[in-house]
């Protein structure tokens, strides 16, 4: 038993509900109230004086690629590269070139390089002549390979997706089918021990950022069928709760693991960065390109119907408005035939919806899983949203205000490893959305990463808010997010993280 007193305890059960003390026994919350130290004078239990700190429910990260995040720890990270020269230097300095079957590079963005282009194969070869090197772009749809890898991996040339220069030589850049195949070959070469090498570091970061439940979206064409299996085999030894969305259309795999849900990153379209999110008007920087839809209408309906009939919660990726439109139509078609008022089917991303899409999503009872941090990193002038969509359309991305006003439940996500695991940054980004008309309140943003996250995977009876009987997953913040200047939300320090009533992290000392 432990008592937490003299704090501000925001339960997230009801807006404005706030207590000053909380009682925890083993893995459950026992009571919430206004108990003070005097009343506990003769109590022989642990008493933690919060000294004015704030308690929130533990954060949910409702959509991330956990295996890919693990791999970051054994990959070359190009976050800080500002030029092709920097890219080469980072590769050259990387000490683990020969430690793995393939050197993996990640988080390379041409928008961050002064040359505004990705390095060529020849430029990569200068610093990686004798080991295979494969670099994926931030959202995985583009891959770069050096000559050594291109020679070894034997990706069939018949496939579409090998970029060539003016002399008809391969630049090393692979897109579309070729990129998918290249990534598969990379993953095939890695053993389970390689995948799990980064787990400890990943969880350490997540816990320090207050995450107590992760929803891992694994598998699918950009990843590997082994990824969900690795997570499912090991989830019991992970320090926080990991729920899995298995991205597959083979429902036997889902049923075999007795999972209640399917999808996550079943891509109906792609991403703005790769110019394959499905739009109604062409991309700003490639005039005839409207993006792609990867399912026919009939194919999408068939899959949704099959999964719905098996009582599975379904989550499908739809970024652009044309994809959102098709997906909503498919959901509507199935739900009209087979009513289930508590389906909680999800749309992942929902990045550029029309007003009618928001209304329809509400009508159908769709839950959304959205990524506010994209607004923080991609929105500046000349950056991704602006370049791909143009100023006017870019202003309409992630319209949280309209979505919340419609009464739709939105779960907050990082989409790691595309974005960092940092729910406070997500909250900050939603509250400080570059378009003031899209901003939500701090309380609403916190809901995204707590109760809504729990709701989005049917765990709201157990977690996501602070209430007697619920799991004791909570965090202690140095500052109250409802009281600080909203522009400083991302700077709030997480003092401690508790999972099932046990302290996993505290600033004074790590446990």
């Amino acid at each position, binding site marked *: 038993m432990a008592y937490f007193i003299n704090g501000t305890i925001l339960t997230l059960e009801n807006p404005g509900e706030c207590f000053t003390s909380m009682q925890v026994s083993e893995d459950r919350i026992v009571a919430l109230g206004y108990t003070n130290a005097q009343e506990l004078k003769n109590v022989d239990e642990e008493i933690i004086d919060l000294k004015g700190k704030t308690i929130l429910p533990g954060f949910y990260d409702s959509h991330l690629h956990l295996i890919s995040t693990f791999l970051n720890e054994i990959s070359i990270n190009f976050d800080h590269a500002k030029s092709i020269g920097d890219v080469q230097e980072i590769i050259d300095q990387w000490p683990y070139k020969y430690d793995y079957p393939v050197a993996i590079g990640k988080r390379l963005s041409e928008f961050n390089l002064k040359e505004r282009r990705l390095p060529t194969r020849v430029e990569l070869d200068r610093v990686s002549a004798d080991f295979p090197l494969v670099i994926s772009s931030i959202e995985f749809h583009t891959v770069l390979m050096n000559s050594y890898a291109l*020679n070894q991996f*034997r990706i*069939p*040339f018949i496939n579409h997706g090998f970029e060539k220069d003016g002399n008809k030589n*391969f630049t090393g850049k692979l897109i579309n089918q070729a990129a998918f195949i290249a990534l598969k070959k990379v993953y095939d070469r890695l053993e389970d021990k390689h995948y799990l090498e980064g787990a400890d570091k990943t969880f350490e970061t997540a816990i320090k950022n207050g995450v107590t439940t992760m929803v891992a979206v694994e598998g699918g*064409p950009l990843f590997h069928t082994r990824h969900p299996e690795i997570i499912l085999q090991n989830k019991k030894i992970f320090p926080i709760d990991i729920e899995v969305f298995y991205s597959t259309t*083979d429902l*036997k795999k889902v049923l075999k693991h007795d999972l209640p849900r399917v999808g996550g990153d079943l891509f109906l379209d792609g991403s703005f960065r790769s110019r394959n999110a499905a739009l109604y008007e062409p991309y700003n920087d490639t005039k005839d390109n409207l993006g792609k839809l990867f399912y026919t209408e009939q194919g999408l309906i068939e899959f949704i119907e099959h999964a719905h*009939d098996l009582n*599975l919660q379904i989550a499908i990726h739809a970024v652009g408005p044309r994809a959102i439109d098709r997906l909503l139509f498919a959901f509507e078609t199935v739900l009209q035939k087979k009513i289930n008022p508590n389906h909680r089917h999800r749309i992942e991303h929902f990045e550029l919806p029309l007003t009618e899409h928001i209304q329809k999503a509400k009508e159908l009872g769709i839950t959304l899983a959205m990524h506010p941090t994209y607004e923080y990193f991609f929105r500046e002038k000349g950056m991704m949203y602006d370049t791909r969509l143009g100023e006017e359309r870019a202003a309409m991305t992630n319209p949280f205000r309209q979505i919340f006003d419609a009464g739709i439940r939105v779960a907050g996500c990082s989409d790691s490893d595309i974005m960092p695991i940092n729910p406070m940054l997500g909250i900050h980004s939603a509250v400080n959305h570059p378009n003031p008309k899209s901003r939500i309140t701090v309380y609403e943003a916190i809901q995204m990463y707590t109760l809504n996250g729990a709701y989005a995977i049917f765990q709201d009876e157990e977690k996501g808010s602070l209430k007697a009987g619920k799991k004791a997953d909570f965090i202690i913040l140095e500052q109250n997010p409802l009281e600080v200047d909203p522009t400083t939300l991302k700077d709030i320090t997480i003092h401690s993280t508790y999972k099932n009533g046990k302290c996993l992290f505290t600033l004074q000392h790590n446990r």
Partner: protein
Amino acid sequence: MVNLKLFGEVNVKVNNIDLTTQLPRKGFGLLIYMATQPTKVFYREQLANLLRHDYTKKSALNNLRFNLWQIRKIIGELMNEELIINNSKQAIKINSEAITSDYAQFYSASYSQQYHESVRCYSGDFLEDFYIIDAPDFSDWVFRERENAQRKYFSAQFAYAQDLMNSHRIEEAFNALTKLSDIDPLNEMVYLRLMQYQYASDNKVAAISTYRNLKIILRNELNISPSNEIESLYKRIVEDTNSKNSEVILHKSKGDQFFSQKIKIYISKSSEKLSTYARMLASFNNTGTQLVIDLCDTPGQRIPSEGMFEILNSLYHSGKYCISQWKSKCEKIDSDIRNKIIKDDMIFFSMFETLIVSEKSECLIIRIWNFQYLDSKTIEFLSYLSRRKLDKQIVILAVYDSSQRNLQVEKFIEFYQGINDVEVIEE
């Protein structure tokens, strides 16, 4: 005579003596580069840059001289004629009369449309395992050549397959296409041709099976649906098929029991119940002692005999079957199904043999995920199985959505209900 093998595993032989490991890599690369362009005159400076991109001009030329000396020494000693000819002080060429290669034969056959010969020469990628570090120009050339050769090979193999089809050498045509899918398992054109040939040879079931496999592969690997052309072909085949399943003919074994079979059929109209039943089926997995076969795991009515192909596919993908054994059994059954004169009992016997031979496991589990979609011919086969004595047990687990009535299935249930080892659970 120098004989170069440049497709697949690379080697060089002179008068049948293998010199592959004796030639240094850059020297070998130089020889290959020149041999693939036997009529060309090469400037020394150009060759020097090809392999030593960042060297000074003097150093690169010196190294070139050394490589040429090595080639002349190692290979030239075994030959009566000059292999490399000095065309002038600055240029050299290869003696085209003194060299043969699979590369030359391949291209010669391709250009003269001798497709059989052309595909015979292509035993793998161009310079498959041959790579020179720090020679980007050479690498550029290899990749271009590799792509070119691969594309030519695909064209030749498609053309050869068509020739075989036209000559009614159907199995060989399928084999030719299979070689392409070994290189590029995601190539839709290969599957389209396979479907077309299977349809043209009146094997609609095989064509539909090919379509279903392709659909799964494309979605899992590339997140796409089959092309419009393949979808149209599939629809045409389904419409063309006498998709009305015939009346099932069921027999009981002597005595009121099965020899080696247990059947459990779960029936419901409720989504929730059906979902629970599906999860129960999912809990059975392939192990050392049991093999699991899946039928009707996706919605959609099956055409006659399609279930039989699903059984064969399951056996193949279980990985426990020797591929050549499976292939010959499958071809026999394939041909029997097409041959409408062959009686069902004979086909069923072939299937039965396939099941026995395939597996040393003690138990065979047949999971029928959507019993309402199973074709009547396969239902009859299950009935046939029940009358056979096997050295292993067969367990049939079926989930039947009774809201989508299938009279043949209901006939099966009614026929066998009440027999020992048959359990019908209806909720």
